[in-house]
């Protein structure tokens, strides 16, 4: 019991500490590709620390929804992170929720963020919320289907079971084609859900193109810090999903301290690799028009659907 609580707390701290690093890493990669030096590795941490200390400006048009949203978003994202295996394949809280729960917990945060976007009464916030609604509704089916395609092999939608069984190669006939399709689908979903190019651009504040940034336009100080941190956690969560669901090797399958420490190191390497890839994509591609995004996300949906069909066909 105490051991489980301890592991959960450690997982929470590891995720909280690692998430700004991933954001910084992507920025660093982009800076290098643009022949700039870029800010230091610790800059995202400095940003957060500074934002936490700053005054908060609150619009008089807003209600308690605006004030409560950063806390709800932060804690629902953190709860979702606790359900995902990071360095230990069977997380202590695995009984509390599966992949569908993770998706819907993230949706809880998105729901309140959409409300907060509308709360200030500015047209930008409404625009962001409205666009977030369409992007979210196109990504979530693809996300659930792609994980389910992998879950079929493991016989579970429970993330811990999927990761554990895959890590031990237990009772698994690896089916490369469906898995690769599901992987591609999940990667597209990741780009969309975390507001990355080519769906959204986290570095822009241009009125006509922003989605996520438009929703949180009215936030400042501590509230902004919580939202930024939650976004970083969400990004980390998706990268963790990709690396641990599709390539969990190296993750601790038993609760020994040494192995878990090793698990943390391996996981950091994997998510950093993915972060570099995202940095490359952000530098190489332009943002898509909003109504082109639907084709891109439709691709993810079709891929995940094909993954399931192929799974059954290959199994016969």
């Amino acid at each position, binding site marked *: 019991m105490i051991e489980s609580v301890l592991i959960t707390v450690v997982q929470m701290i590891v995720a909280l500490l690692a998430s700004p690093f991933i954001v910084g890493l992507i920025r660093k990669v982009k800076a290098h590709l643009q022949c700039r030096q870029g800010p230091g590795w610790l800059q995202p941490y400095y940003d957060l*620390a500074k934002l*936490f200390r700053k*005054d*908060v*400006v*609150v*619009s*008089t*048009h*807003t*209600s*308690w*929804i605006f004030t409560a949203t950063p*806390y*709800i978003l932060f*804690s629902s994202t953190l*709860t979702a992170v606790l359900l995902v295996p990071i360095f230990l394949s069977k997380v202590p809280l*695995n*009984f*509390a*929720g*599966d992949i*569908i*729960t993770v*998706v*819907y917990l993230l*949706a809880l945060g998105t*729901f309140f963020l*959409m409300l907060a976007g*509308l*709360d*200030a*009464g500015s*047209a930008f916030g*409404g*625009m962001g*919320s*409205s*666009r977030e*609604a*369409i992007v*979210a*509704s*196109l990504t*979530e*089916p*693809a996300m*659930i*289907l792609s994980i389910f395609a992998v*879950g079929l092999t493991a016989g*579970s*939608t429970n993330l811990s079971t999927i990761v554990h069984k895959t890590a031990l190669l237990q009772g698994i006939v690896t089916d490369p084609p469906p898995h690769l399709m599901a992987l591609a689908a999940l990667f597209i979903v990741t780009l969309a859900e975390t507001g990355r190019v080519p769906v959204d651009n986290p570095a822009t504040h241009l009125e006509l193109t922003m989605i996520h940034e438009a929703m949180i336009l009215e936030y400042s100080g501590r509230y902004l*810090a*919580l939202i930024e941190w939650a976004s970083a956690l969400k990004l980390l969560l998706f990268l963790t999903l990709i690396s641990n669901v599709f390539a969990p090797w190296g993750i601790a399958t038993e609760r020994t301290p040494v192995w878990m420490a090793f698990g943390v190191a391996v996981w950091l390497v994997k998510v950093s690799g993915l972060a570099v890839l995202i940095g490359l994509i952000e530098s190489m591609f332009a943002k898509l028009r*909003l*109504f082109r995004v639907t084709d891109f996300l439709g691709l993810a949906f079709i891929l995940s*659907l094909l993954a*399931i069909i192929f799974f*059954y*066909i290959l199994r016969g």
Partner: protein
Amino acid sequence: MFFDLSWIVHWGLLTVVGLLGIGIFLPSVFYRNAHVQNFVAHGAAMAGSVAGIALGIAGLLAPTAATFSVSSNLPLLTFQIRVDPLSSFFVLIISLSGLAVSQFAVGYVREFEARYSIGTMGGLYNAFLLSMILVVLADNGFFFLIVWEIMSLVSYFLVVTEHEKAETRYAGFFYLIMTHVGTAFIIVAWLVFYQQAGSFSFEIFRHPPAPIPEGFRTLIFATALIGFGTKAGIIPLHVWLPYAHPAAPSHISALMSGVMIKTAIYGLVRVYFDFLGGAFPWWWGFLILTIGAVSALLGVMYALMEHDLKSLLAYHSVENIGIILMGIGAGMIFQSYGLPHLAALGLLAGLYHTINHAMFKGLLFMGAGSLVHATHTRDMEEYGGLIRKMPWTAAFFLIGAVSISALPPSNGFVSEWLTFQSLFLSFQIPDLLLKIILPISAAMLALTGVLAMACFAKAFGISFLAMPRSAHAREAKEVPLTMRIGMGLLAGFCLALGFAPMVVVPLLDRVTAGFTGVTIAEKIVAGGGFALAPGLGIGFASISTPVLAVLLAILIPAALLASAALGGRLRKRYTKTWGCGINLKPRMEYTATGFTQPIKQVFDMIYRPTVKLETEMLEESRYFAKRMRFETHIEPVFQKYLYDPVVKVLQKLADRVRVIQSGSLHVYLAYIFVTLLVLLLWVR
């Protein structure tokens, strides 16, 4: 113990019928004082609902079904009543909603006191509740049809309460026709049973003397689907819902949308699982599942485009009926492949969503009623900023919105999750097509879920947040305490159903066990009673909403404390929202139309929107518009291509038939004479 339960069932039944019966007639006695009528009518309804809750719980727990029967002078008709787990469960749903809605009605009906007879309204209200309870309790086909028809007629009268409005009369007429088309199909189903089994008693339907041939079983399946489907509002039989539910007074809408359409779900489960029992061809379940998936997806899509808050909620009823049918359809598919545990799971998921939908839809309709009460308009574009004027209503509406959007840890999440699981467990079916189809419908369910979330972000955000968009919204006031208590009750039930699935699942298991022959509650409720794991032996997945709720409840204050630790005391500055240098006006806010514009554009294949834009330019320059007029509509596909042709044919036929209707009394007398003559010749 057993004696006690049957005692409660016995007296509960008598008390419910007695109290609601009093509620029908007593209010008219106090015709001088509308206040007293209001209290008497809704007081009786509340007392009857409390007795109904006791009856429902006792009936669910009772080890055997209780039957009561009173014979009548009419042939074929006996007043047979049977209290079994399925009917008790629906009595419980009706009574829980009835209790809260009656409480709400005490305050809500006040504004009708000056205009309409409260004695009639209150009497009809009680008759409505009683007829719904009798529909689910009836154990005789003839008796069932009588109470079913009473339910339809009484609800029609309640829909046309505000009969001086032309649109209300139209809505009522539409409803009346549709519901009778449905009833006609149910009659056909019962007649087939009667012809095959030789009695109208449900007991004989259940155990016919000789097995019913496959063709007739299919006929019963189809007619029951159309008959009950019309009441439930499955697509394409849903067209009456978005008219009738908004036209009715809001407490009636809450009952119609939350409860009345559930009697159709009851009818379907009763006919398919109880009467036709078990051995279905696989395509029955497949058809139900497909209809469910289509209804869910199209229902939410049309809801997104509605700006009339009550029509929006009515379309969400179509959506949720679809989700319920997905669970039931999956259960039927499993049943036909001889997988009773999974069949029980699918049916259980559907029934769980049934009670959940009754709770949150009732709550949301009462919230909408409160908004109408406060602003005197149903148009969302005229709301705005109401969270400050009506904080309680806003909080309750938010609970309803989170629940219907299936966000954890709400009750909607639990039942949708169970539906997801029963769809994913399809890999155990030995049929490739179904193995692939079921995950696809799960994807449709996922899309439905997210779109519902978007729709309620719109409904809540546009109605309650930002600045008031009209004078109505600026002058709105919080609704009286009686109405708030009504909403609070259902909000509480929603939360309880979300946090305590381990209590609900064993109760539902008693319902499904009777049809599938297996109990699954011990297998599903895992983790010391705190988690649900419907793997049924293979450990597919589990959730625990209590743990999720506790985690959120710990982490939110933890986030508050941690940010205080990191940044010290929170200093806030208040200013207006930045409006790019000009004063921010309500007209600059995002509208409900604007909010759903991207969705409309992406799915324009379904919506087929027509846009009309007229621009009048200044004479001096063709770059400056003097006036612009923008109009947009979405095409009502089903009405245009499915109903209008039928109506046209009917009208043409009526024109032909009118030839014999000359209007002259002599001609009619001649008709009667000729008919008499023909009949006399016939019998000779």
